[in-house]
């Protein structure tokens, strides 16, 4: 037996082709997801070098960032968006890359379809030109977002040069209270360690409260790792993980499954393995959360008050006040009861079937508030179909909501789904940056449950009021 090793090290070291002295590692990549926005320049670069795609079968493409969420059967109206999607189709055809395009039954947000199709499997290294690639860490993967130059490297060589991050462990013991979801855990952690607290690190989430999360919940949590600055986050795979992966389109079958299970069963951090940094939180301390500022670390319990800038350090005040001014809030304000205009449910953070179920169960038998415009956007075609099958769509419609077609939508507002200037949106996505959901839009990040409570009351509302 060697010395105790972390799960992260086991996967990283197992994929290291070579380590450069005082430099980055050459890391072999098992799975590469690509989409229309960050890939065209990479393909151009490849062509310029006369290179092809090294492993098309390790690459999967889908358009998601830039597509409309209605009338997907028609040609995309916006010429620039259409051009990007056409380029993706072209590049995939040229290089034999499997593509799940618009109207394909498997299309969706990259980070939703990867796990859904069984392409994401424990122990893999996974990259994508998108920072929320950290989502796939929920399966015990080393998964992280990369830039376009790196997309080109992976396309061309199936490898990437990466400095090895440090290791952090965040333990959450205890039981989550009623009405508290994985999203709240994520927002709570970031509010504690700040948006740069994880920088330079890869996080392993552990403890009873993490183990009790569903796979969807773990994906939500790992997804938000990047918002603490971390390269990624992972959870050691367990029975729940294997059960989720089993039987999916691209998961191993028969003997391959047996072999895979054998390999996957050792994917844990050994007792006594060392981390560069450790945090421990208690699940009972976490309430439903909501953000009030312009970065994901500016969050508080939904029953909380916006901190006064006088409570901050001198250097931080200017940015803090700028942020509150943008949001139209003042220090000392109570959040509950503030009127909101939009509710957005979707994105790779909370656009999976479990999120739609949670939202739908909450609003069942209630009515959408008059002042609310709601965009409910499934993360994929499969989620859309499942919502239809399970009868969620009918419940939503009865309450005055409708389901859009899948895509990133108002998470980054590259398509038509933009929150108008000055309007407040309670959003289940991951970023509340200035203008993220449209120029001048004001975003309040929250869980699908909080979004549901706000959607029926028209103002910031604690969902626990309705839970008995």
């Amino acid at each position, binding site marked *: 037996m060697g010395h105790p090793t972390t799960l992260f090290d086991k996967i990283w070291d197992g994929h290291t*082709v*070579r380590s*450069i002295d*005082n*430099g*980055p590692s*050459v890391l*072999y990549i098992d799975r590469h997801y690509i989409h229309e*926005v*960050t890939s065209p*320049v990479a393909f*151009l*670069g490849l062509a310029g*070098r006369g*290179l092809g795609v090294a492993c098309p079968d390790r690459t999967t493409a889908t358009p998601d*960032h*830039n597509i409309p969420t209605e009338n997907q059967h028609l040609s995309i109206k*916006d010429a*620039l*968006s259409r*051009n*990007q999607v056409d*380029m993706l189709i072209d590049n995939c055809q040229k290089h034999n890359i499997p593509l799940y395009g618009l109207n394909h039954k498997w299309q969706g947000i990259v980070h939703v379809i990867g796990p859904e199709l069984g392409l994401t499997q424990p122990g893999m290294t996974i990259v994508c*030109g*998108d*920072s929320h690639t950290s989502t796939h860490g929920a399966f015990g993967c080393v998964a992280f*977002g*990369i*830039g*376009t*130059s790196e997309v*080109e*490297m992976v396309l*061309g*060589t*199936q*490898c*990437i*040069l990466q*400095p090895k991050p440090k290791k952090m462990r965040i333990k959450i013991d205890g039981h989550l209270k009623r009405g508290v979801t994985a999203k709240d855990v994520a927002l709570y952690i970031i509010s504690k360690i700040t*948006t*740069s607290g994880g*920088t330079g690190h890869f996080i392993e989430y552990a403890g009873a409260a993490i183990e009790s999360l569903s796979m969807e919940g773990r994906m939500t949590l790992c997804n938000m790792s*990047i918002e603490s*600055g971390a390269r990624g986050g992972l959870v050691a795979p367990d029975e729940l993980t294997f059960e989720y992966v089993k039987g999916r389109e691209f998961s191993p079958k028969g003997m391959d499954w047996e072999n895979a299970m054998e390999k996957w069963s050792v994917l844990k951090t050994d007792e006594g393995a060392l981390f560069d940094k450790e945090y421990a939180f208690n699940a009972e301390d976490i309430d439903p959360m909501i953000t009030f500022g312009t*970065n994901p670390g500016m969050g508080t319990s939904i029953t909380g008050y916006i901190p006064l800038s006088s409570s901050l350090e001198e*250097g*931080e005040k*200017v*940015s803090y006040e*700028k942020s509150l001014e943008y949001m139209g809030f003042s220090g000392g304000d109570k959040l509950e009861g503030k009127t909101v205009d939009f509710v957005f449910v979707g994105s790779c953070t909370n656009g999976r079937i479990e999120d739609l179920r949670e939202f739908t169960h909450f609003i069942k038998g209630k009515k959408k508030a008059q002042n609310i415009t709601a965009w409910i956007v499934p993360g994929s075609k499969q989620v859309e179909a499942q919502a239809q099958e399970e009868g969620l769509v009918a419940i939503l419609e009865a309450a005055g909501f409708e389901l859009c077609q899948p895509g990133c939508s108002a998470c980054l*507002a*590259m398509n038509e789904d933009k929150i108008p200037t000055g309007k407040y949106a309670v959003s289940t996505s991951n*970023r509340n*940056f*200035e*203008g*993220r959901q449209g*120029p*001048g839009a004001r975003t309040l990040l929250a869980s699908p449950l909080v979004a549901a409570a706000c959607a029926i009351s028209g103002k910031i509302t604690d969902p626990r009021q309705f839970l008995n």
Partner: protein
Amino acid sequence: MPIEKFIKINSSAVPISIENVDTDQIIPARFLKAVERKGFGDNLFRDWRYDKTNKPIVNFALNQTKYAGQILVGGKNFGSGSSREHAAWAIYDYGFKVVVSSFFADIFKGNALNNGLLPVQLTQAELVQIFASIEDNPQATFTIDLQNQTFVLDASGSSFDFDINPYKKECLLNGYEDIDYLISLEKEISFFESNR
């Protein structure tokens, strides 16, 4: 596109003393629709630079004629958020060769280095001194010497050391790209692939 060699730069600087500048501010998503790496500098800090009617916002540093140069100085935690390499392209395309901060987000830092844009990470105290020196004299110049890993305030002669990964330093000094190195390992990579 091969990257330009970076050796030494002497220039005045543009200060953006805001913390947590995320890449959505550096280049908003609606400008990511291009399929070529061109023209992103025009939309650098678009929504901080122009109002809704496309009029320049006079208070913003990029619109103030007293500030110019190849050095961008930003507040703590620069480049957080989205992995869009367009952020590094936009800064470089605008004419900056160096970004200074007391803390950079990981992906932004990597993207900058892959494009010949040098991220210089100094201490918070040093950063404060630089902002003060620019406020004192917007024409103040600074010298960044990559070989010696120093950032010098020319007026006072104060010199700050900065860290950079030795491998990345070699790449920048010589204009090498990571992908060329990876391509040179083709055999080793196939060997690795067939033996796992």
